[in-house]
């Protein structure tokens, strides 16, 4: 993963250190701040467009007017009760996945180390499938199954990778092994289901935002409100950790504890996002990488990755609803296909640079 260091940043955008007379100092990175601001604006703009999209199209001004509480009763019902929950689920899922992806990539020290790939997503999918096929559960039971499966898998992978500390590579490989096993379980459950349940399960596994209401928003919002600050606060030690455990320890970072806290938070964020929207493919993989390329900053780029994740989700949902005419695809199909293409490109460039 070793970040290419871009030295061509102009002087105005180079990170600088602010010092106060009292001896406090703070590092500021104008470029990163600018990127975060631009991505936030873009995500909000796309959100407004998305809230106006559907069977009853509305212009951006109408949407904004309704959000400000000045719309007609019909408009308020459509925007606030139908589309806003879906929109919030998209944004929050994007934030959670982007952040979790950044954490996993930093801990595994590999641009491919995202929860998609190293087993946690497979764990949530298996948990949800048990809920759908075996328990025949409602959407709340499915969500609980997903969270349970994800957390159990995370715990199992962490413990199996433990050997006097968890090495990033071992974690990745153990995760791959666990993912393959859970994939077998998932296939088996799918063949045991009747066709209606199987179709429901496949739709769930693709990742979809259809029919999300406020009951999906609240758990996700609470999880994000608690865990996002926890992860963001660990940004500095995480950055030290990227240099390797020894260097990080020498700089005073409690390597194992930092890893445990951020990984626990990332697993919970992934589980919450998956229980709300299904396992959306590749957002966790691509968001941190795209953010990193925009900020050109070393380190895990946690905040830019989170905002980029939100932008990716709403943009993908907008395209999935509009691009194929009447046929509205689930958002997971679009992120899957785009993410797959991006992945191939990433593998190719990394190979040419001799890093894969």
């Amino acid at each position, binding site marked *: 993963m070793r970040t290419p260091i871009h030295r061509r940043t102009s002087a105005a955008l180079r990170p600088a250190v602010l010092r106060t007379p009292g001896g406090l100092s703070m590092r500021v990175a104008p470029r990163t701040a600018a990127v975060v601001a631009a991505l936030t604006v873009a995500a909000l703009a796309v959100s407004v467009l998305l809230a106006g999209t559907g069977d009853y199209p509305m212009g951006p001004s109408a949407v904004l007017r309704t959000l400000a509480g000045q719309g007609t009763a019909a408009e308020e019902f459509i925007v606030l009760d139908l589309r806003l929950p879906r929109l919030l689920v998209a944004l929050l899922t994007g934030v959670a996945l982007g952040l979790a992806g950044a954490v996993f990539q930093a801990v595994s020290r590999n641009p491919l180390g995202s929860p998609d790939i190293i087993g946690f997503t497979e764990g949530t999918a298996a948990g949800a499938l048990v809920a759908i096929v075996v328990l025949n559960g409602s959407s709340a039971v499915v969500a609980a199954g997903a969270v349970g499966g994800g957390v159990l898998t995370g715990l199992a992978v962490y413990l199996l990778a433990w050997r006097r500390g968890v090495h990033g590579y071992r974690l990745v*490989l153990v995760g791959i*092994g666990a993912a393959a096993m859970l994939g077998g379980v998932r296939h088996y459950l799918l063949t045991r289901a009747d066709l209606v349940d199987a*179709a429901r399960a496949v*739709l769930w596994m693709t990742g979809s935002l259809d029919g999300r209401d406020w009951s999906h928003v609240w758990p996700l919002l609470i999880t994000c409100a608690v865990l996002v600050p926890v992860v963001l606060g660990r940004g500095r030690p995480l950055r030290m950790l990227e240099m390797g455990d020894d260097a990080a320890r020498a700089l005073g970072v409690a390597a194992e504890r930092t890893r445990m806290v951020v990984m626990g938070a990332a697993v919970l964020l992934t589980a919450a996002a998956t229980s709300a929207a299904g396992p959306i493919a590749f957002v966790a993989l691509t968001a941190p990488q795209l953010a990193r390329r925009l900020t050109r900053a070393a380190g895990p780029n946690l905040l830019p990755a989170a905002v980029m994740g939100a932008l990716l989700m709403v943009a993908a949902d907008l395209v999935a609803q509009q691009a194929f005419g009447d046929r509205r695809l689930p958002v*997971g199909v679009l992120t899957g296909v785009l993410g797959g293409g991006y992945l191939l490109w990433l593998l190719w460039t990394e190979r040419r640079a001799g890093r*894969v």
Partner: protein
Amino acid sequence: MTAATADAAPAKDPAPPGAGPAAPPAPRRIPARAGGLAVSALLLALVAAASVALGAKSIPPGDVWDSLVSPVGSDTDVVVRQLRLPRTLLGLLAGSALGLAGALMQALTRNPLAEPGLLGVNAGAAAAVVSAMAFLGIGSFHGYVWFAFLGAAAVSVLVYALAGTRSATPVRLALAGTAVTAALYGYVNAAILLDTAALDRMRFWTAGSLASARMDTIVQVLPFLAAGFALAALLARPLNAVALGDDTARALGARLGSTRIATMAAVTLLCGAATAVCGPIVFVGLIVPHLVRSITGPDLRWILPYAVVLSPVLLLGADVVGRLVAAPSELQVGVVTALIGGPVFIFLVRRRRMVQL
């Protein structure tokens, strides 16, 4: 499968453990290795017999024998000759193909974690077959086997392009393969989501199963597998040279380019054909070559025959276990191999020093 692992253990005994470097084996080792191969073949015969004799309908061994030798057209004859026999044959062929492909791939990439299932070759074949079923409406085996080859070839070229560089460590290769697999399965899910009829066919196929085995599909796939086996047999010596590193191999007169192309062609033929009939099955090509290498040492002229004989032991054993555990229903063989293979993979990864090839 626990039964098969337990049975596989005695096969280790005849050969000295941790056999030496790639130098020509000492003469006294050859009888030991040949003896080991004979024991493995015996094991295979036992597992194959179990696969014919055991199943959801319990039939006494005597009746099974009668059905094979002198069929009279009873229900038992139908079960044995039209269900269990093709299934066993398919397990033999597909198991050998997957194990052999795994051994070839590990030799070619010199990477201990290279395995067609793990690196996405089977997923490539699956994605191409799903496209054929869902978009082109091709339902016959003869139609989609070509798509399976196409998909397997595309992914093996891609993986090799990624893995062939010097800096491709096992971890990077495994990650790249998993990423490719994830992307392809995302596509497979999307395709079957748009078409419920395809979903009904595909969910059984993507689990990896021997249950749909029929004599005519076996006959159709046989030429491809035979070509793959023949090619693999020719490759043992050149790949031994490749194992010494590019420069040494060239100095020894090996033709690197043509060896690589031929190996990838063999892997494509074997994996594409096996996946087309059974669906994607993981881990067979990973576990067996590792087990074999601990018996024979690194000489491919021994590894390949051992892999051909022992891989079907694993696959058929897994199939029999899957039939017995969930009787009267069954656990698909791909599910059983995944459940067995995952722990083996984690064990390999947890070892202090990863095996170097």
